[in-house]
């Protein structure tokens, strides 16, 4: 029982990582209808920027804020320069452009900062608290940050005029344009925000998995899985989906190990937790194709 709780807690902590990445994915998807395969590498690059600022001795929070700013501008520029000219291109061409971006960010990070793992500081104080036997302070911090970020986005999209304009631009660009919304810039803004969220996600993830060019490769898969189960159009769904995936994979491994230890029958273990989790996700999708929280899409003929 003790271990079950610990596994759930660890799953939530991992889930927070996936949720943050999924959130950044959803940002771009909501704004532009694209799944950004370069999101993980962009977040990794942003994390290196944070690290570089931190190395100058300016302190954690200023480094992160500066890196968020740089990432925001970077995202904006990528949208305006790379993607804007292709806004009429078929979705497959866009996927290839994302793969190109992925390759660029990945190799540049390795060339600039080498491939060796680097420790990354955690901003959360290392103190004991109720339940610290189950979950570390950084893990709690990560979960809190992902929830805070989600709430901020919720408020932004629901109550600010800029947020409303962004939603309008994404959901009905023609009407939005007629209503005077600068649709193009809204898309760019979505990219910028996604990049800034990626910087936060990277800074939260790096103390756990260490900073290296490959740090996001595995995580992006889980981020996609989280976005998939929660519905890629919904920020809340993405966060929830991230947590579900995190907990699910730990529970699968836990019960697999339990069975193995008590009966000696090996069916599943850590090696199989990802495929099993993915099969479950696909099952969810078949039963509910737009994800647990996705909107039902209407098609016009």
């Amino acid at each position, binding site marked *: 029982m*003790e*271990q079950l709780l*610990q*596994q759930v807690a*660890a*799953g939530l*902590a*991992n889930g927070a*990582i996936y949720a943050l990445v999924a959130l950044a994915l959803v940002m771009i998807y909501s704004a532009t209808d694209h799944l950004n395969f370069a999101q993980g590498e962009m977040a990794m690059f942003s994390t290196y920027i944070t690290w570089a600022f931190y190395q100058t001795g300016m302190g954690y929070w200023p480094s992160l804020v500066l890196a968020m700013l740089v990432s925001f501008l970077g995202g904006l520029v990528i949208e305006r320069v790379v993607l804007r000219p292709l806004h009429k291109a078929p979705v497959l061409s866009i996927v290839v452009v994302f793969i190109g971006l992925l390759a660029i960010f*990945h*190799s540049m990070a*390795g060339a600039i900062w*080498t*491939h*060796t*793992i*680097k*420790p990354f500081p955690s901003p959360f104080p290392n103190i004991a608290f109720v339940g610290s*036997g189950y979950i*570390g302070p950084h893990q709690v911090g990560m979960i809190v940050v992902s929830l805070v970020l989600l709430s901020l986005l919720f408020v932004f999209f629901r109550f600010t005029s800029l947020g409303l304009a962004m939603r309008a631009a994404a959901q009905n660009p023609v009407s939005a344009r007629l209503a005077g919304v600068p649709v193009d810039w809204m898309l760019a803004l979505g990219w910028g925000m996604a990049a800034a969220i990626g910087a936060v996600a990277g800074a939260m*993830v790096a103390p*756990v*998995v*260490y900073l*290296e*060019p*490959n740090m996001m*490769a*595995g*995580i992006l*898969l*889980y981020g996609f899985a989280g976005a998939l189960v929660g519905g890629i159009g919904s920020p809340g769904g993405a966060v929830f989906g991230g947590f579900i995936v995190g907990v699910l*994979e*730990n529970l699968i*491994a*836990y019960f697999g*190990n339990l069975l193995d*230890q008590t009966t000696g029958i090996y069916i599943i*273990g*850590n*090696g199989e937790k*990802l495929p099993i989790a993915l099969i479950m996700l696909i099952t969810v999708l078949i039963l509910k194709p737009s994800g647990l929280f996705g909107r039902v899409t209407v098609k016009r003929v």
Partner: protein
Amino acid sequence: MTRIDRRTTIAGAIAATVVLATPALAQKKYDPGASDTEIKVGNTNPYSGNASAYGNIGRTIEAVFKMVNDNGGINGRKINFITYDDGYSPPKTVEMVRKLVEEDKVLLLFNTLGTPTNTAIHKYMNAKKVPQLLVATGASKWGNPKKFPWTMGWQPDYATEAAIYAKHILSTVKNPKIGILMQNDDYGKDYYNGFMKGLGKANEKLVVLRSTYEVTDPTVDSQMIALKNSGANVFFNITTPKFAAQSIKKAAEIGWKPIHYLNNVSSSFGSVFKPAGLEASQGIILALYRKDVNDPQWKDAADVKAWRAFMAKYMPSANLNEDTHNYGYSVAHTLIEVLKKCGNDLTRANVMKQAASLKGFEAPLLLPGIKITTSATDFYPIQAVRLARVKGTGFELFGDVLASESK
């Protein structure tokens, strides 16, 4: 003119020593990839992909050969080191190696990196009769001269190392209950099998839990929690540097304090113990065969000083904390020794013959007492290790030099 003079004198000097050893070698003999002026050496390394941290080994070897060439080469011949990126992907390794052998026509393949990648070319190299020398993996299958006379490893093999840990556990720990974390691939398996063999059939049940991870897993947190709860008091950690650092840190976080054995693959302060936290790393036991160049106890050793001078001149921007640099330096010097011994007989057969007749060669950066010895039936160049404990910012060696017993 002066260049020719120097070369002839060097060649003369070398020839003199070689003649003393093996008089028949005075005549020049070449296979593809060797000539009066150069020796072509091929290599694959993961400069990209998820094992890209090891790419530094290839870069270091390249720099060492540049230094050798700047100093006149080996027996007057320059080393032409051709290294390709294989991204740690076996089919790509096969292709790159076929390119090296069939198109670039290298004399030999040196220190190709990785267990799955070398496995993919193992049969090919032996069918082609091209040396696959001093490969950068510790799998035990590289030392099988009967079946694979063209393949040779370098570092102590994983199975032997694991067996040494197993024996150490049996002789020092009372009522051991062992938990194992391993990477779910060829390399993890080799350590695991060697460990189980070292424990012996009767003691197999001492392993209370074996947990695996995939290289794509973001963390090993779940595995570490399961291991703690298995009641294990001994932890055998078969992980690569990033996951080793994660697991050490996580063990400390969840308050699990087993007797911790860590595989030599992750014996680095720069990329394991420092990122994991020095406090959490204290007392970890591991087998070493090379000096940790940042360890204060070797500060004045001649080979460490030479290594520092080399790094400063040929790799000025490199991070000195990375263990890959001294690995590459040490293994490159082993090949240099083999090529020197070949003299003017640069045939593939002679390369293998010379590689298989190293007698107590002390490659730079090996621990005192550990020497490289090979023979026609012994294709395991380094077979000895010393156990050490992480203490402070260095290793505290304890016990004797342990030679392999499993062969």
